[in-house]
């Protein structure tokens, strides 16, 4: 190469410029996100709940109350400074249990989405890219079958076939969820694959796999990420519903849905027992929805 010394200078300038321009990109994204106070609220809610869930042992005032613990002297206490959400029929601090409940809820979201998003995306991309071949028909018809059953019914039936526990509830939700990602990614892929930049890649002899993963996938990250954030709340809701119906986590696991179900038989006299976990679910879902809206704003501007 000619003029190595000059090239070094240019490289330095390119890198400086890159740093400046990427910082600007992030600043622009953050500007779009923070334009809405609601997105900021959502972010704050999710961060604080994440913090509570990770450090549940330190945040919860009575970490031992999460599982099997009985102290009838303290039972049926209404909310007070000592017990923020009161205590339940065994004398357990409801707030401590909610903090641990968040850990379960977020774990469920994490597990479900970390399986559903990659698998659904991969299948959707294959079906969309090889549109018209047998692989599309196999994947999309399978997806149609799963979509044709109402989601909660499907999850419940899977749960009732299997043993009722947290893991099986996650499995059920995963099985009912992948077709939604597959369908979304399928439709994006089948429109993107006719874009000239895909031809251009093909004109260079780039392989199909590489086109899918390094040309098409980055173009879909926006919608996928937005959907994942908005779906997080649905996963929590469905998980809570399954637990509420007694097919998910079993007591004494401090799962939010299980707790609502367990305590609902003490309504209306001991209202604080089920109000605590129910409110906790509502706040978590609100947080995810607001955050999802904010993320959508960031990508919508691109």
């Amino acid at each position, binding site marked *: *190469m000619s003029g190595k010394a000059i090239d070094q200078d240019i*490289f330095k300038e390119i890198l400086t410029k890159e740093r400046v*321009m990427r910082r600007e990109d992030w600043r622009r994204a953050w500007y779009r996100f923070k334009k809405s106070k609601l997105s900021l609220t959502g972010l704050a809610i999710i961060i604080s709940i994440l913090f509570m869930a990770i450090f549940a042992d330190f945040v919860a005032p009575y970490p031992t109350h999460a599982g099997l613990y009985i102290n009838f002297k303290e039972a049926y206490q209404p909310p007070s400074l000592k017990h923020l959400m009161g205590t339940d029929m065994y004398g357990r601090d409801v707030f401590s249990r909610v903090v641990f409940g968040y850990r379960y809820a977020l774990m469920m979201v994490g597990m479900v989405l970390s399986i559903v998003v990659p698998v659904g995306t991969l299948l959707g991309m294959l079906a969309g890219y090889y*549109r018209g071949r047998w692989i599309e028909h196999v994947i999309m018809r399978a997806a149609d079958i799963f979509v044709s059953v109402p989601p909660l019914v499907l999850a419940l039936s899977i749960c009732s076939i299997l043993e009722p526990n947290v893991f099986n509830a996650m499995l059920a939700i995963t099985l009912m969820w992948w077709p939604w990602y597959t369908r979304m990614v399928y439709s994006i892929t089948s429109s993107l694959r006719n874009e000239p*930049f895909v031809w*251009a890649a093909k004109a260079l*002899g780039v392989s199909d796999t590489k086109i899918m993963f390094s040309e098409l996938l*980055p*173009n879909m990250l926006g919608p996928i990420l937005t959907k994942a954030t908005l779906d997080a709340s649905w996963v929590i809701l469905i998980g809570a519903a399954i637990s509420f119906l007694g097919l998910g986590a079993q007591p004494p696991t401090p799962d939010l849905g299980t707790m609502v179900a367990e305590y609902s038989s003490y309504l209306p006299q001991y209202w604080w027992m089920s109000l605590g976990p129910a409110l906790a679910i509502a706040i978590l879902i609100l947080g995810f929805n607001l955050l999802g809206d904010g993320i959508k704003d960031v990508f919508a501007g691109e």
Partner: protein
Amino acid sequence: MFSQESDYTRIDKINSLLEVRDLYVNYRSYWYVYKVLNGVSLSVRKGEKVGILGESGAGKTTLLKSIINILPPSGKIVNGDILYKGKSLIKDKKYLNEIRRRSIGMIFQDPLAALNPVFTIKEHMLDILKHIYKNSNYSKSDLMSMAVELLREVMLPDIERVLNSYPFQLSGGMRQRVVIAMALASARELLLADEPTTNLDVTIQDQILRLIDKLVNERKLSLVLVSHALGLLYRMVNTLYVMYGGEIIEIGSPRDILKDPLHPYTRMLIESAPRITTPKVGEGIRGNPPDYRNPPPGCRFYPRCPFAKEICKIRKPELKKVGETHYVRCHLYE
């Protein structure tokens, strides 16, 4: 139906780089088969600059796309062959990929669509260079200096900014220059340019075509250029092919074609180009391009041709030599 005569006997087999032999391409929709390319033959010698002229929908883009095999899934090559240095690009996929990667580069019509919107130009350039040199171990800074070199060659100003921009942040002319730089990276022997100036304004069009001309001359590339700019084609290319309705109807040097057009379509096409010396707008050509679902069985131009004879309806005319380098496919010259 494919038993019609083929005219690749014309092709100079020794010096030819690219040969398209009697190519038939169909597009298939749910209901219809569109018979677009109808026995197209074309040859490009080493260092030859070939221009393709024709109205929209004449099959020019389809021809270029078939050469590097990027037809949409509905398009199929049903007959004919494409040879590159004597070896078939259709039958040997490995050879095709090798040639696409290292020998042929293509400039697309719409530079914005040809660039992936989520990557910066730097990422584009590095990806392409990495792909092209995947078997040789160049370091990242080597590739980087190649990228800078290429962008300098297409005379882009402010390279540091361009490299770190996303495609939408550049102007149309800059984008097309970037696309040319990317095509150059893989075009060691042949450059295909599919209406490279369609979406640009006139001053930029001129600059871009001049740039392509300069680069092709400097690098001793062969060129296949599809363009509507008659004047520039006249100056840039050695051989001009006129296409109508998926057929090559006239071949010749630009001088043959533009000064002495023989086929009625070519004549009317050249007459309908607006000229500053004639006060009136040209006559144009009446009618529409042929319906590819059910093309006229004889000469595909006959429904619009003012000189149509009875035989034109029935028989497809053969390519006939009328001059040193001049060939025409018309019954009027038989």
